[in-house]
């Protein structure tokens, strides 16, 4: 027992809490923008895809290509490639080109997660029975009404599941962002746990990340069940 406690004795807990807070900020900040951008993109992907309401072969092929290209880029590479753009968006002045800070991590996180989330939304919308669309059309609904009154409410459980999966993916992305000095638990793990050989910090950050993922999944599952009505 003593041995166990001694192992954690020299941890600077304020540092851990600060890093956890930073991770949360990055996570929810980027999740917010990902949903705001990814939901319309997912709806557009769905509508323009073959045999759907707004079938547009060219537009769908273009959107699909962009989404696929962004998704094929490993996130760690995206982080670095995006540095100049991030600088432009956030206006952060960077002496050392590799230090981002918490706010600076959000644009690459959003760009990394949005295409992924949009694909999940497209899939969730595809799960909605075509008969529902037909029924709504037969009532004289406009395309906008079909989306807002039928498609999105019917796909809600799937969309919440997509948000959950995306949030968890973002947790691991935020940890990667630590490599380029974005702060958060990943940053802590790399600077103290890896570079200074502080195994105890490594263990604590890993446990924190695990707990975070557990909480996200549990809350997400509860929301999915709540909106399933089945």
């Amino acid at each position, binding site marked *: 027992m003593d041995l166990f406690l001694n192992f954690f004795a020299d941890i600077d807990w304020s540092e851990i809490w600060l890093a956890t807070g930073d991770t949360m900020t990055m996570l929810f900040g980027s999740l917010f923008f990902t949903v705001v951008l990814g939901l319309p993109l997912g709806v557009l992907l769905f509508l323009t895809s073959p045999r759907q309401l707004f079938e547009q072969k060219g537009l769908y092929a273009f959107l699909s290509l962009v989404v696929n290209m962004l998704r094929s880029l490993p996130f760690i590479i995206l982080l670095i490639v995006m540095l100049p753009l991030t600088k432009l968006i956030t206006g952060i002045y960077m002496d050392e080109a590799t230090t981002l800070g918490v706010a600076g991590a959000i644009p690459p996180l959003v760009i990394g997660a949005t295409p992924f989330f949009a694909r999940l939304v497209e899939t969730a919308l595809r799960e909605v029975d075509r008969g529902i669309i037909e029924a709504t059309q037969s009532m004289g609904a406009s395309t906008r009404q079909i989306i807002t009154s039928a498609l999105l409410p019917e796909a809600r459980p799937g969309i919440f599941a997509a948000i959950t999966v995306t949030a968890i993916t973002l947790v691991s992305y935020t940890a990667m962002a630590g490599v380029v000095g974005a702060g958060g638990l990943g940053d802590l793990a790399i600077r103290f746990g890896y570079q200074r050989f502080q195994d105890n910090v490594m263990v604590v950050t890993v446990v924190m990340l695990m707990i975070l993922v557990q909480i996200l999944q549990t809350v997400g599952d509860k929301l999915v069940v709540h909106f399933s*009505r089945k």
Partner: protein
Amino acid sequence: MIEFQNVHKTYRVAGKDIPALHPTSLRVENGQVFGLIGHSGAGKSTLLRLINRLEEPSGGQITVDGEEVTALDANGLRRFRQQVGMIFQHFNLLASKTVADNVALPLTLAGELSRKDINLRVAELLARVGLSDHAKKYPAQLSGGQKQRVGIARALATKPKILLCDEATSALDPQTTASVLQLLAEINRELKLTIVLITHEMDVIRRVCDQVAVMDAGVIVEQGSVADVFLHPQHPTTKRFVQEAEQVDEGEQRDDFAHVPGRIVRLTFQGDATYAPLLGTVARETGVDYSILAGRIDRIKDIPYGQLTLAVTGGDMEAAFARFTAADVHMEVLR
């Protein structure tokens, strides 16, 4: 009145034109229950969806009460569709909305009534279909028959002139089918609603329809009043449907009757004639003997009918046949 003039529909599949409906002209009078029967792929579903342009016609003209549906622009079409209710084989209710919200949906989409008026209308509709106690439930908590009742209430929400039924009872068990058909007949009677329904069961046609059109391979092969088509089918497809409904096989029957002596005739009674004591009277007066080989007495919508296959022997056979014909009975001599 729904009128089709040379309406046709061709699908383009993998570079080839597949005709789903050959040029068809058709007329459905107001207040009628019009049945379309055909096997799957016969084009009945396409024809039904052309009425509210869920399918765009490849050519021809569709008019409803003088309004040319085929000429409507997007806005006009939306307004037109609000006057045409539709129910579906798989109900197509929104799983995410309560029964009451499902029924309210066409009204909220139309956006013409206040929330209060919508609630009143929904309560009235749910009472009509007998689901007042289920307003707060979700579709997943209902049985198939109840779901179709919600579908009917939803279709009636905007007080349409026409109700389109797409295989509305095909996913239901016989008992539930009967009660849903009864509800449709009731609605037709009380609201003077024109109903167009498609089905692959002759029994559905027999129970609720006034007129029927039989479809085969994208063509209407036979059309007329249900009694005429049902009792005296002409086209092979129609005959097959009627035999399926009556569960008789004419070939088998011919073999069974092969050893029966005398002439074989089929008598068809309709309306009041069904209950008249004709057979006994004729037998007494003409001295013929008869034995009943097959028969059924049932109703076509509200009209009772009977159809008997008799073997007639002895006596004055010609006089007996003349008496049958004179008594408003349709007689066919089978042998």
